[in-house]
């Protein structure tokens, strides 16, 4: 079966075609085809996994090469471009995650999406998504990987905009698509750089081997940096994370499948797949600090802090996803390959469970609203199954033993500490503290207190609760594949590559001091949130009384003003009116800075503020704005949006170039 793994990806692809063509005429409108196909894929994946594990076990630690099967697609100038499958531990893990979560999400969707007007189309898109993701994880060369990468981006666009009648949803879909495209530019350049750096090959094993041999370090650094941009775009890392919370406009099962468990981990997967490139490019073995770990570390904290001020339960989970993806990227950055991939594996189960739980609440408890403060509360009495599974998932996410998240996060932090990245060990502990606190807040607002919504909340139907229970069981058990505390290291033994893999990756043994520290961080986070919400202790109403607290809160609610930065500054400048950017700087940066300073001595500052800002700053800015308005107007005529104008420019350019060719030849 290892040689025929392509069948696993082919089945959902066929299901996509079948559902699209005849889905409407089937008794269950196509859902049965999608579920059957992905179910079969799951069974085959289990066979593949069993055979791979068997292969590793019989090899007794000797170098097990990945099983590569490749056809030549075409040849060009002596360069072979192939399509094929590369089955190794990483591919097996990802295949398992994708098929399990996809199957459960599709079963769940039969109830959640019941009666939707584009029910058939929805299942077709889910099938296509599963097929593309499987193509991505099984790819044996970077070009094929890129095809899968773009396909999952497309499916994400289709599914976020599933209810496109509402304008906000199409906007969110476009935003997700265009933001991830920004990162994809990095992927394209990175693929080209690694192609040349590895000596003209797209082959992943060869690229990793070439990278680990070293050579031109600047070239590998450039390649790794471009690929890191791709990871930042796809995996919602700071500062391109803004699309992920907006992507919650899609149906909830889609959020669980795409924006928690699978598509967003494509970036992390890329990092793990081309690990040799990053290892050499960023000199990960050297310790201290590097770009990859830094991006991950910042993302952990930013995501976790922003999760505190969200009222929408799905957005809390979205920011938590961002934060957890930060852990994985940081893990790769500090040399904890195995722990990062293991965290990807466990996170997929409990995050999918959290999203499906939130969907269950909205479906049966709060009349399709996701607002925790207005429409939820006290639901634990009405929805016991949803409540308990949600609590299990929250505990796993927070990293409470013996749930899955504890083992993966602890291993990740321990490796960071042992590889000379002590700073990031503390960033990770801070993240664990924040995670525990915001998840406690989320559970409190949703399930405790009095019911604030209207209607009769009740438990969801079995099609929803059964996937929840299955995922809850996985969230508990998955951690025991790699529990260093009990000396279980199956995950490392089975799935860590032996070929084309940096020899410097360490696997520290479990240390009680670190484990206790991690659990203590979680316990403090939980205790703080418990005191604040259940016991009413702490600074309640601080945002109403204290100016500084209010501004800090607004700063967070406005998502650090990053969205305004992107739409206002970047997009606005490119579209022409530089003037809008200048006035934006005035509104947000200068006013914001002035406000923050004024927080200390506001009464004294008010007079200065009005004179300074209104007269001097506005005067300068208006003058600047007028000047830039005129330059903007000049530049705008080039970007007219008129097709034929572009065609004429293009034709003229070609004419001049060919003329030059004739003349100079």
């Amino acid at each position, binding site marked *: 079966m290892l040689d025929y793994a392509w069948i696993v990806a082919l089945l959902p692809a066929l299901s996509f075609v079948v559902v699209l063509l005849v889905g409407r005429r089937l008794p269950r409108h196509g859902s049965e085809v999608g579920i059957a196909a992905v179910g079969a894929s799951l069974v085959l994946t289990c066979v593949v996994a069993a055979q791979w594990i068997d292969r590793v076990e019989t090899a007794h630690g000797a170098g097990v090469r990945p099983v590569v099967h490749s056809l030549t697609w075409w040849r060009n100038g002596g360069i072979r471009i192939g399509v094929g499958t590369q089955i190794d531990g990483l591919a097996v893990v990802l295949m398992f995650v994708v098929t399990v979560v996809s199957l459960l999400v599709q079963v769940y969707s039969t109830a959640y999406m019941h009666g939707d007007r584009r029910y058939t189309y929805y299942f077709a898109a889910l099938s296509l998504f599963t097929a593309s993701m499987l193509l991505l994880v099984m790819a044996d060369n970077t070009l094929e990987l890129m095809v899968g990468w773009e396909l999952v981006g497309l499916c994400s666009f289709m599914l976020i905009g599933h209810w496109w009648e509402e304008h906000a949803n199409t906007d969110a879909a476009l935003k997700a698509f265009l933001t991830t495209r920004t990162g994809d530019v990095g992927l394209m350049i990175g693929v080209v750089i690694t192609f040349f750096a590895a000596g003209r090959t797209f082959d992943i094993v060869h690229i990793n081997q070439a990278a680990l041999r070293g050579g031109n370090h600047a070239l590998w650094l450039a390649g790794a940096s471009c690929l890191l941009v791709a990871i930042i775009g796809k995996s919602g890392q700071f500062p391109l994370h803004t699309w992920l919370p907006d992507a919650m406009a899609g149906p909830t099962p889609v959020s669980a499948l795409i924006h928690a468990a699978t598509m967003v981990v494509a970036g992390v997967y890329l990092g793990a797949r081309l690990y040799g490139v990053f290892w050499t490019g960023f000199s990960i073995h050297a310790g201290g600090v590097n770009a990859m770990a830094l991006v991950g570390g910042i993302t952990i904290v930013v995501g976790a802090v922003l999760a505190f001020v969200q009222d929408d339960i799905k957005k809390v989970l979205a920011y938590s996803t961002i934060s957890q993806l930060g852990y994985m990227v940081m893990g790769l950055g500090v040399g904890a390959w195995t722990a990062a991939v293991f965290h990807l594996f466990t996170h997929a189960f409990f995050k999918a469970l959290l999203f499906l739980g939130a969907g269950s609440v909205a479906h049966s408890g709060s009349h399709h609203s996701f607002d925790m403060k207005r429409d939820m509360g006290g639901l634990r009495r009405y929805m016991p199954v949803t409540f308990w599974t949600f609590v299990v998932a929250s505990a796993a996410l927070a990293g409470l033993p013996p749930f899955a998240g504890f083992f993966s996060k602890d291993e990740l932090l321990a490796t960071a500490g042992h590889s000379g990245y002590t700073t990031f060990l503390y960033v990770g502990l801070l993240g664990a503290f924040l995670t525990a606190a915001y998840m406690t807040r989320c559970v409190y607002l949703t399930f405790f207190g009095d019911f604030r919504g209207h209607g009769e909340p009740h438990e969801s139907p079995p099609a929803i609760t059964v996937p929840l229970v299955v995922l809850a069981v996985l969230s508990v058990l998955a951690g025991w594949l790699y529990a260093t505390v009990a000396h279980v290291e199956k995950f490392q033994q089975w799935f860590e590559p032996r070929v084309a893999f940096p020899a410097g990756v360490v696997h520290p043994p479990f240390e009680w001091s670190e484990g206790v520290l991690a659990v203590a961080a979680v316990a403090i986070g939980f205790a703080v949130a418990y005191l604040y919400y259940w016991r009413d202790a702490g600074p309640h109403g601080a945002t109403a009384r204290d100016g500084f607290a209010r501004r800090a809160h607004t700063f967070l609610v406005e998502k650090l003003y990053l969205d305004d930065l992107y739409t206002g500054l970047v997009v606005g400048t490119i579209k022409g009116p530089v003037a809008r950017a200048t006035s934006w700087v005035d509104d947000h940066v200068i006013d914001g800075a002035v406000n923050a300073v004024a927080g200390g001595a506001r009464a004294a500052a008010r007079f200065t503020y009005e004179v300074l800002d209104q007269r001097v700053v506005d005067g300068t800015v208006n003058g600047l704005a007028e000047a830039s308005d005129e330059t903007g107007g000049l530049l705008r005529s080039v970007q007219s*949006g008129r097709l034929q104008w572009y065609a004429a420019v293009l034709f003229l350019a070609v004419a001049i170039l060919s003329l030059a060719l004739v003349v100079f030849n």
Partner: protein
Amino acid sequence: MQLNQFLILSAFLFCTGVYGVLARRNGVLVLMSIELMLNAVNINLVAFSAFHHSVSGQVFALFVITIAAAEVGVGLAIVLLIYRNLRTPDLDRVDRLKG
């Protein structure tokens, strides 16, 4: 028959096509003009193939025809959608990237 005669015919056809692409506003006519340009290229390919006694030019021409058929299929679908959404095939009206 001389090679020049074919080349002049194809240059004339190509220029007609370029004029059509740049000047016509109707999407269907732009697509037809693109076809003209492609066929001008085909004439070149076939003419050279005949004068050089090599079959590869004709094979290329066949490829071009196939691709052109696919291209016009996609193009017409786009024009049809533009017409359905904007009630006009005028390409000047399609100047915004908006969902």
